[in-house]
């Protein structure tokens, strides 16, 4: 169906169910219980999960398929965001033009960066992209302050012209909408102790993510995708056969740049604010982590990785000492203090440390990322199929040559 084979279609359906039922899945603990700390089913985080999922899916088209490691993808995210916010300031608060323009602008910018950076490969390519991203960051932070708002960033104001919407009343807060449907509108569903939040913005982002995921499957399975894999396995050999691989890598670069721009545009649609830090090199590094953590070259891996990292950032970072004290309150004093001392460095502001450790564990023991972990667990349960192909197996095969 939809040009997908049976396995891919199955994967697509699973992702669709996960995305649409996220408010239930991410809120497994009843409100008010001690475990409610771990609930992630609130609009902002759900939106971030799918948006960074899109970002990582796009990055994976470049890195997973061609093996080109871009260290500057956050620049495209940032450029897309700035384009989107300017659309909201100048044209309309409807998110559709903002998202479309952000994709186009990010595509053009990535065409420029890719055209220059792709003259080199390997580490030189990575450094070039990193340089471009840091340059964009520095420009946005200071020199381009009139356009980017510098450190303060940009937000829509009621004083903005907005030619399609007409002026807002004095003092009204501009809100992003989709043909009148407010992005932060939603409703809550209480079932017993559980509270599930459904949010319009999230569902818009989720639908876009599903489309992006579908496109990425089509790219993976297309002759074009095959060519990109050929680049990854041996670009020199490809060149010797008389094929010019550059248009393919450049196309992949631009596509992944457009994905990043789409993610940037959606970020603005959900939360109407842009700051230059969005383009900082750590943000570029984060998407690399997401992709590798989830499983580079696999279809669903980057989405899992993005979800994992954003969850850590937003949930684990908020566990503070008083929360720990509540958890361990039932224990005798000495043991309680000991446990708190032991656990405290890994939560709250120490979430980076936990993430780093988990990342090391994944890279060492599951080189194929979380997807490989899932496959191993799956294999335990169906021994019979140990040698059968799974959905991601061909991607996992592809990964191996690069690891040599």
């Amino acid at each position, binding site marked *: 169906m939809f040009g997908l084979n049976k396995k891919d279609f199955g994967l697509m359906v699973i992702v669709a169910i996960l995305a649409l039922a996220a408010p239930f899945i991410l809120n497994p603990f009843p409100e008010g219980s001690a475990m409610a700390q771990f609930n992630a089913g609130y609009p*902002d985080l759900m939106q971030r999960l799918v948006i960074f999922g899109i970002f990582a899916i796009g990055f994976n088209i470049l890195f997973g398929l061609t093996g080109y490691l871009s260290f500057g993808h956050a620049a495209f995210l940032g450029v897309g965001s700035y384009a989107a916010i300017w659309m909201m300031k100048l044209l309309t608060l409807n998110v559709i033009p903002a998202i479309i323009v952000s994709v186009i602008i990010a595509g053009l910018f990535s065409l420029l960066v890719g055209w220059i950076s792709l003259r080199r490969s390997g580490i030189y390519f990575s450094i070039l992209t990193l340089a471009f991203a840091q340059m964009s960051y520095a420009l946005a932070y200071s020199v381009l302050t009139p356009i980017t708002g510098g450190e303060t960033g940009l937000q829509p104001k009621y004083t903005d012209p907005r030619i399609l919407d007409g002026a807002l009343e004095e003092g009204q807060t501009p809100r992003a909408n989709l043909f009148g449907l407010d992005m932060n509108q939603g409703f809550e569903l209480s079932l017993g102790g559980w509270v599930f939040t459904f949010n319009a913005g999230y569902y818009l982002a989720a639908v876009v993510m599903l489309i992006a995921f579908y496109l990425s499957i089509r790219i993976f399975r297309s002759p074009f995708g095959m060519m990109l894999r050929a680049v990854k396995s041996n670009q020199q050999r490809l060149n010797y056969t008389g094929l010019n691989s550059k248009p393919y890598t450049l196309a992949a670069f631009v596509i992944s740049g457009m994905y990043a721009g789409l993610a940037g545009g959606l970020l603005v649609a959900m939360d109407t604010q842009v700051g230059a830090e969005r383009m900082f090199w750590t943000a570029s590094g984060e998407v690399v982590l997401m992709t590798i953590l989830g499983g580079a070259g696999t279809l669903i891996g980057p989405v899992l990785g993005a979800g994992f990292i954003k969850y850590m950032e937003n949930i684990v970072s908020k566990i503070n000492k008083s929360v720990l004290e509540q958890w361990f309150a039932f224990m005798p004093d000495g043991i309680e203090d000991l446990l708190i001392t032991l656990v405290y460095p890994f939560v709250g*502001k120490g*979430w980076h440390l936990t993430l780093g450790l988990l990342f090391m564990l994944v890279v060492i023991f599951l080189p194929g990322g979380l997807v490989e972990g899932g496959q191993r667990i799956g294999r335990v349960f169906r021994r019979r199929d140990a040698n059968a192909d799974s959905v991601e197996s061909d991607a996992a095969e592809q990964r191996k040559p690069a690891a040599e």
Partner: protein
Amino acid sequence: MSFNNPTRRGLLKTGAAASAALTLPTYLRADGHSGFTNAPQGSTVTLGFNVPQSGPYADEGADELRAYELAVEHLNGGGDGGLMNTFSSKALKGNGILGKKVEYVTGDTQTKSDAARASAKSMIEKDGAVMITGGSSSGVAVAVQALCQEAGVIFMAGLTHSNDTTGKDKRANGFRHFFNSYMSGAALAPVLANAYGTDRKAYHLTADYNWGYTTEEAVRSSTEAMGWETVNAVKTPLTQTDFSAYIAPVLQSGADTLVLNHYGGNMVNSLTNAVQFGLRDKQVNGKDFQIVVPLYSRLMAKGAGANVKGIFGSTNWHWSLTDEGSKAFVKSFGEKYGFPPSQAAHTCYVQALLYADAVERAGSFNPCAVVEALEGFEFDGMGNGKTLYRAEDHQCFKDVLVVKGKENPTSEFDLLEIVEITPVEQVTYAPDHPQFAGGSLGTCNPGA
């Protein structure tokens, strides 16, 4: 089915799925809770403390969090009550806020506006925080303030010094107790004229971002009004760690005063470089060469060590003040943590108390009621003398301290001495002053 050769059945299926997807949004109608966002339920109220726990201002953030924990303790009736005893308003009774026990959630702003907003959003959407406070950078303050305006909760800014927070980016739901660039300039200029004369030639090095610009503008316009001349103003990248290339041209320029519009690590490095170049031993135009740092903090003074000796700057509050409020705060903070609080800790503690007091006086957590209670509120006993929360821009007006690096520090905390307490009249400006123009508070937003 594939897109290349659609079948009738496939088309129907796709159509049905698509129309289901499109009708989905119509189910998403807010009913939510009545009145205002996150109306406290039950016997507790949740506040959100959003401070930098990692990144360049992590030290300030840690001190802010200490101050908030102390404030919560005092609000709930623990400890010695701290500033609640000296505060001119007696609405707070030490039984929480409106009888509800104060609980709090914390988050890490990472000094990035994105991260700060994500963290604030999770406090509002997940934890039900009715007020967000904290932060140690103006970019973050402006971003979170705008978010709180949209979401319909109160924002009590932490350490933010840029004019824009209560200038072009002011919001009805946001309040700032800390002073700003303009006040620094206005307070410093007379002291500088007194100490160094009125015919100085100044050379500015300015951190290349928003706060740097407003500070440079403020110091420039107030010193030029005193008769100083600005020879040159050079922007330095925020990430710069070695400023020697920027210091060398200063001497050739004929300037006899260097103004460092730098904060945090920037200032520590630029000042150290300037002193190492021997600027302070030089004579230019027949005058001793001087250096000025518009915004000082104890943590910065500590970083720059002996180099700060004798250098003028301004600060919001200092623990060595001897009024009743300051003494009470230093005492309870010192007893709990073992060292004196920084100005960041002070402003955050005061903000938390001011919010609680406003809720008590308004009799409601409704943001609009709180805004009304805070607007035009005059109070005393919080360590800064008589203070006014001006209704027009939600900026606190109070005395500003001009300080100088101490020549003979007696401890690692005793690095600054107070030169002058500039009275509030001298740092007050009109709400539509050009340095603050272009913004509008709008109307308070109580949310859903």
